[in-house]
């Protein structure tokens, strides 16, 4: 029986899709069976970030409507055993998703995998609410920027009121992933500090993902960052997050890029 995660944020462009791909891959790298699900109907992108865009035949709406069976729509990752993708539709809109249809598909996914990671669309409307509705655990992705923190606060409110768990009177488990963090700028006072964000949102911290060029590099080539370069700083931060989700006690450190002797010698090449 799977644990269902929703990766959500309110604001767009903060790293939901990157986080979904990276966490999904990191869990699969730990030997778990994982399905990442794109709920961004009409603007799908998880397929691109996962490098599966050329192989999409069926999507979430086809499965919800019964045009295809779930196993036919799942795309198996070619690099990593146990990792699967259920893409969103690119042509329809979110109104084609019925509540009952989504519930049925989520039940089927739950029975099939250890982890189901749902990539939420930006915003707070129906698409985002459908993505979070069946979650057991919510991952709130936030940048250290005022607009992102405020939107995350809205999303936390929805998680506590509009989800199936909330409707049953249970507490939704929530975790924060702080992305694009730059400790130098935070120390200089030019960027919100981790403690500031945690104090405002008051949900537990799952990981701090340092600002890194490796994230763009990975999405350029269509590979989750934890798979594309497992030793880089953001990949190690996501790998630790995956371990924490599995209940391991991993001390929270901000991973930094490991510079080799040659890199240090030729500092100019580093940028």
């Amino acid at each position, binding site marked *: 029986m799977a644990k269902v995660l929703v990766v959500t944020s309110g604001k767009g462009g903060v790293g939901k899709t990157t986080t979904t791909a990276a966490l999904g891959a990191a869990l699969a790298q730990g030997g778990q069976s994982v399905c990442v699900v794109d709920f961004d109907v009409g603007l799908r992108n998880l397929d691109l970030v996962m490098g599966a865009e*050329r*192989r999409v*035949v069926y999507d979430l709406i086809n499965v919800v409507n019964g045009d295809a069976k779930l196993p036919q729509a799942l795309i198996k990752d070619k690099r990593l055993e146990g990792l699967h993708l259920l893409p969103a539709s*690119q042509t329809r809109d979110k109104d084609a998703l019925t509540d009952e249809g989504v519930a049925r598909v989520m039940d089927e996914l739950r029975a099939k995998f250890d982890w189901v990671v749902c990539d939420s669309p930006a915003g707070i409307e129906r698409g985002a609410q459908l993505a979070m509705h069946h979650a057991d655990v919510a991952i709130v992705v936030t940048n250290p920027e005022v607009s992102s923190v405020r939107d995350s606060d809205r999303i936390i409110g929805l998680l506590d009121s509009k989800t199936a768990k909330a409707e049953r009177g249970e507490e939704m488990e929530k975790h924060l992933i702080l992305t694009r963090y730059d400790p130098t700028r935070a120390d200089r006072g030019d960027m919100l500090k981790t403690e500031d964000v945690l104090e405002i949102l008051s949900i537990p911290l799952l990981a701090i993902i340092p600002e890194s060029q490796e994230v*763009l590099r990975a*999405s*350029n*080539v269509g590979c989750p960052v934890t798979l594309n370069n497992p030793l880089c700083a953001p990949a190690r931060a996501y790998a630790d997050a995956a371990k924490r989700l599995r209940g391991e006690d991993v001390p929270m450190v901000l991973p930094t890029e490991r510079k080799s002797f040659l890199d240090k010698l030729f500092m100019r090449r580093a940028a």
Partner: protein
Amino acid sequence: MSILGIFQKRTSSAVARDRLQLILAHERAESGRPDLVIQLREEILAVIANHVAVEPDKVKVTLERGAGVSTLGLDIELPLGASAKLDAKLANKLAEVAKQSTKKAA
């Protein structure tokens, strides 16, 4: 590209540009008929179902969008009995033909 470029790995941005160009070309071309694959599957299956009992769940559809062409793959599991049924049909037909020819001879 410099001489050094030959020995260097292709940059990730070059990979990104190629991937985007390819997928956008396909999406623009498909925009008129988003359900083409579903329709093709249904029609091809209907033709096959005229001859063999096919379980819809045992059909795997794959698609690979390449530069210039796409490849649609249909992997259909034929039940063990299916070919036997066909053979039986064929045998019946042969027997009929044989009977008719013997009748004629008589």
